[in-house]
């Protein structure tokens, strides 16, 4: 858990992409990667550094689905619901995961901050449909049972 904001992450990203308006998305992606969401505290910082109003940064952050203003879980589980995954029954996987973790379409992150379950429109892993991605790792040809087993194994990592 990253509780205090480490601004050096932003500084490094700004250094890399340039202190200009057009670097905003790249810098936000870096922030999202490191903090796993876009903390409110970084808005005034980026506004001053990149010369963009906080309102505009908020506009960009709310436009793209990939950016989150809320803290995500340690494990972000993305259930692919693209056409290939959908026809090979991705929805039951999603439902099983939500049921197992007590989540819904509105409540996406568990209270203990361990898991976030969301859908994506395509992971580009259609040949392994239905696919699930946990953080940066793809889990191919899933079904509800395998998904639950995956969650349990991840919980085991936590308890270990």
């Amino acid at each position: 858990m990253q509780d205090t904001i480490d601004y050096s992450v932003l500084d490094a990203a700004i250094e890399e992409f340039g202190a200009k308006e057009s670097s905003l998305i790249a810098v936000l992606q870096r922030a999202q990667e490191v903090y796993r969401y876009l903390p409110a505290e970084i808005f005034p910082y980026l506004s001053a550094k990149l010369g963009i109003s906080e309102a505009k940064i908020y506009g960009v952050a709310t436009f793209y689905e990939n950016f989150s203003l809320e803290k995500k879980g340690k494990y972000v589980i993305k259930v692919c619901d693209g056409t290939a995954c959908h026809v090979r029954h991705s929805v039951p996987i999603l439902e099983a995961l939500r049921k197992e973790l007590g989540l819904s379409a509105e409540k996406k992150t568990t209270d203990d901050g361990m898991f976030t379950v969301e859908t994506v429109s395509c992971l580009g892993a259609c040949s392994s449909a239905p696919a699930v991605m946990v953080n940066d790792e793809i889990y191919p040809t899933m079904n509800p049972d395998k998904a639950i087993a995956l969650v349990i194994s991840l919980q085991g990592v936590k308890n270990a």
Partner: protein
Amino acid sequence: MDKKFMTIDGKTVEINGERNILEVARKAGIDIPAFCYDPELSVYGACRMCVFENERGAIDASCSAQPRDGMVIKTNTPKLRKYRKTVLELLLSNHCRDCTVCPKNNKCKLQEFALRYNLSDVRFPNDYNDASKDTSSYSIVRDSKKCILCGKCVRTCNEIQNVGAIDYGFRSSKMKIVTAFDGEIANSPCVGCGQCAAVCPVGAITVKDDSEKVWNALSDPNTEVSVQVAPAVRVALGKEFGLKEGEPLMGKLVFALKALGFDKVYDTSLGADITIFEEAAEFADRLANGGVMPMFTSCCPAWIKHAEHKHPELLNNISTCRSPMQMFASVIKHEYKGDKKHVHVAVMPCTAKKFEAKRDEFTAKDGSKTVDYVLSTQEIIAMIKTAGINFAEAENCPPDNPFEEFTGGGVIFGVTGGVTEAVLRFVSKDKSDKALKEIAYTGVRGLKGVKEATVKIAGKDVRIAVVSGLANADALIEKIEKGEVKYDFIEVMACPTGCINGGGQPRAELKDRILRADGLYKADEAEVKRASDENVLVKEMLSKMDKHLKHELLHTTYIKR
């Protein structure tokens, strides 16, 4: 010469560097409808009302299409009418249609176009997001259920004012105009200039209405209500009463305010005269004694708030003078000798004045605000109409004792360059018409966003800049901070062209602003005394004040926000 022509609705029109087909058509007198297009803003191309049809029957938006030599287009065909009607129906389908209780009733573009395109029915269910209004600002009210997402407010806030309080948030059907984190506008860097309300074609952003509180004060027999009227108001209300745009109508307005029940009516031009005395003295002092330079003017409350947000390093460069409204109000409240409760109202072209009046710095001895209520020009017009006063036929009345005297120097505060010109008149020993004319030609006049002049004062070359529009101010400040330019005196007005185009005025296109500026200069020329130091009343008043009292009544401080 290679002249270029295009044909619009069978009319041959010359193309002369216009930025789009829409401008060419409007030049030819063809009024293509548009919500999101504004000649002073960038092209957004969102509303799709300004469509045209080419020879092959293809449809495109005239705001984002370039005119080409030999082009033949039509702007009013069955296909286009159908297209526009559908656009209107879609806009109306998620628009709150309670027109009769909307502040923009009868001034709304959506209403106007629905009528113009003879819309008799909307095929889609009326389903809008019934979010509550944002009434957090003293200056404006935001009502998202009236918003048609034309983006004029966003572009004005960013491009003209460089404030960036609002932007487009979310996307698709969830898109809306937001502040950062979709919070209340009062907690944003909004400066309250009201230019967003001025450009809003519908009722999504409107001027905060404080008239009810003033009506209550007026009907209370135990309250004496005094009112001051800013210079720019007098040239902005004629059209609303069937008179000419830009005609100076202070005399009629005094009559109307008396008829509304105001006990004392004063002219803020006197406050402007006081400001000139104080500001000129402060400038001379800074110049002679090596004070912080350059000195920025402090009349405009939107500029002040902007500087407090964005330029805290400049707060010592801003004149400590209160605005004319605040100086005058402090004096009026200080001098009030009556037994009744005293309420002071200011009629202003400005929405930022509503915020200024609430600032902690401006509290009278009795604990009240020095200005109890600020009414915009729009609100006072509405009140005059409510009372059924025949404004067009009203007699001309002078302002009341004991503050009846004012000069032309105070009157021209209402237009960009006016404050500077008044200062130059003040410091000029020669007050002849010829001398005043020379001052007028130094470069301080005209409606350009940035003006420069160099004037000799007390043997020294004084470099002056006059800016209106906060984006222009920010660009100038950047140049100053980089050392590219150097000035001694800088006049800043937040609204482009100054108070004549204030956020609280009836909407003024550029051509209307020219008329309003002319009207103010006409009113100035009608005065016998045109330099503020000729105001005997102010001179005597100031001579009786000691340094401490002047500080208490006429000067102020700023805070970093």
